């Protein structure tokens, strides 16, 4: 987990600050050549001083970055190729390099495989559900609800800023069987609700519901901003041409919303692929490992002290996230 956050942080890290410290602008190449001459003119000396100053200014960041982002990433990557156990932490380099063994072990581990299926289930159902809920709420806030708009906006966003621990307590009451609010409400319409968290078939749907409820607020806020940037004139023009509400939404709003949609999809997918908190507080991965997620399985391996294996698992998750993100960019890229 630490490996991942390190990795996701890294692409922006090393690239931006270093060039920013270097001389830039037109004529960059020639002045640098000039300054390389031993008897450089005053302009060259000024440039050199500037470069030095830039490096000095960038240094604190570089050191912090190298020590706290780059090094952990390198070490965890290295760890994933070794048989590091918890008791080796005192001497992190006196371990055996075992090549790709950890990776093959992770991929053949039945619990890790099961958790991969569970995570896919969670993302494939949970992400569309979250996006649809968020978009619906955003459209309603943008067009439909005019009174108490701020109250609704706050209400929908509140779950995002509420602590998962508090959310878990409330949801456990809601999902309780028998006697939970959800099953009581289902009972009113004659449905005998399932034992949500105790039944392996229903535990994942219950967590998906909870995650969608908890996360759609963020997506909603971003969609709302996107909706408000759709020019009203386009809607007017389309309306004059005879387009109905649904046609305008599909052919005017949606295309203009595509960059927003891409952003929301990518961030939601990254978050959902690292699905952890909900099973951790609600089910501990059970019953029958039906809510065990990839990150939870990895977390357990860290807990068992199998640091090498856990690091390999983290990198597998990282690769999956990278691939899923790349696919989304490809599917939703700007077609001009």
């Amino acid at each position, binding site marked *: 987990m630490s490996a991942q956050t390190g990795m996701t942080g890294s692409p922006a890290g090393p690239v931006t600050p270093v060039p920013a410290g270097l001389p830039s602008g037109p004529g960059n190449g020639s002045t640098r050549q000039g300054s390389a001459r031993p008897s450089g003119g005053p302009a060259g000396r000024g440039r050199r001083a500037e470069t030095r100053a830039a490096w000095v200014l960038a240094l604190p960041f570089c050191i912090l970055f190298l020590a706290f982002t780059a090094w952990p990433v390198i070490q965890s990557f290295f760890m994933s190729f070794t048989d590091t156990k918890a008791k080796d932490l*005192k001497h992190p380099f006196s371990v*055996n390099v075992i090549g790709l063994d950890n990776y093959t072990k992770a991929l053949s581990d039945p619990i890790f495989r099961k958790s991969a299926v569970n995570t896919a289930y969670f993302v494939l159902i949970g992400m569309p559900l979250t996006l649809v809920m968020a978009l619906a709420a955003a459209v309603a806030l943008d067009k439909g609800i005019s009174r108490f708009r701020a109250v609704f906006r706050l209400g929908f966003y509140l779950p995002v800023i509420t602590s998962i621990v508090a959310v878990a307590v409330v949801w456990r009451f809601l999902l309780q069987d028998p006697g939970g609010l959800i099953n009581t409400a289902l009972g009113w319409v004659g449905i005998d609700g399932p034992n949500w968290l*105790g039944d392996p078939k229903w535990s994942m749907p219950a967590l998906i519901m909870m995650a969608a409820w908890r996360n759609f607020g963020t997506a909603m806020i971003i969609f709302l901003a996107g909706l408000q940037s759709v020019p009203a004139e386009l809607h007017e023009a389309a309306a004059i041409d005879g387009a109905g509400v649904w046609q305008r939404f599909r052919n005017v709003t949606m295309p203009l919303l595509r960059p927003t949609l891409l952003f929301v999809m990518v961030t939601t997918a990254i978050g959902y692929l690292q699905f952890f908190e909900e099973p951790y507080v*609600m089910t501990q991965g*059970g019953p029958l490992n039906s809510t065990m997620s990839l990150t939870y399985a990895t977390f357990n391996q860290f807990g068992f002290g199998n640091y090498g294996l856990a690091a390999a698992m983290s990198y597998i998750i990282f690769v999956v996230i990278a691939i899923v993100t790349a696919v989304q960019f490809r599917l939703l890229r700007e077609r001009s």
Partner: protein
Amino acid sequence: MRRTTITVACMTAAALTMTACGRSADNGGAAAQTGAAVSTGAAKGNLTMWAMGAEGDKLPELIKDFETANPGLTVKVTAIPWNAAHDKFMTAVTANKTPDLAMVGTTWMGELAGSDALDPTPSQIDKSAFFDGAQKTTEVGGTSFGIPWYVETRVVFYRSDLAKKAGFDTVPSDQAGLKEMAKAMQTKAGAKWGLGLQAGGTGSWQSLMPFAWSNGADLTKDGGKAYNFDSPQMLESMKYYQSYFTDGISDKAAPATPTTEPDFASGKVPMFISGPWEMSGVEKVGGAGFKDKYNVAPIPAGSAGSSSFVGGSNLAVFKSTQNRDAAWKLVQWLAQPDVQAKWYTMSTDLPSVKSAWQDPKLTSDKKLAVFGKQLETAKAPPSFSTWEQVVANLDTELEKVTKTGADPAAALKTVQQQADSVGTGQ
């Protein structure tokens, strides 16, 4: 260009570190050790001690007595929440910033001793003073590291009033009898479930093992060098455990948040197996007079007599301590029968020292005596550093056995295979 240079540099550095590593050859299975003798006289200097949970909060009060007896000594007790403790210990060991002594979870002994962090127990401490099963939890590879501080064990809790209705005065002393009684609770005393057994989830092995140990199961083989899960005794016990679920005596789909106490008080589940803390738990929920409506009984005997699970916490001194003598003196003091009895009144932690049970503070409670008797035969799991990982598989497989009716023999085979591939970590 610049990026290529960085990449090349990184790869070279990585390659260099790769070649520099490798385990040192001596992974020595050293012989059993005994710590050097501790000096006599008063303890002096400063000590830092870590303790978890309620113990961490109440311990400073107890230790005041020790400080009064040893005027040159100051003990600083740091309370640590249980859920953060394991990580904190491992980080401390890695950074060589351990306390002088600490309360240690019994299942961490293998890991901590394996990291060479603990000091072997000196010979002055009489190991036979403690309950045997508890003493075993301090032993890793034949060497004892520290002492058992307090213990807990699991016994059968039952509603004595409902048992009378079901036609039982007490819990039968054999496993078949227990099942009959649980069934009678359902048919004659109106209970929804006869016996509350954990169907799965973390720690469900602790409900299974009392039966297995009573049947004579041994979790190690080859002279304590390997795990042993697919033994006939384990199979017999797992089948017995499963039968409670297939016969509808125990609830397969118990709620995610346990409702043991309210269900016990309402008579919905009038029997369960748990530890001493449940006495205050059920009495609080049951209200006034509930004390007389329930009782406790030892685990019904199997072919090897009655046994149970022993848990609790140990006390250990760390190797890196600068004040070894004082640390061990504090440990010795905490193991004195009178101090253990006093600690029971402060914390309700059961004494690990056998003679402390003669203290009137403990003998006055009849229910407590059942725990004391059970402790004499109770057993602890092996102190291998991989135990937690291996037993997590047992939890998973046990859940399949209880909930989906999976074959116990196949389940144990899977656990054994996984245990063999993980190894004991010694």
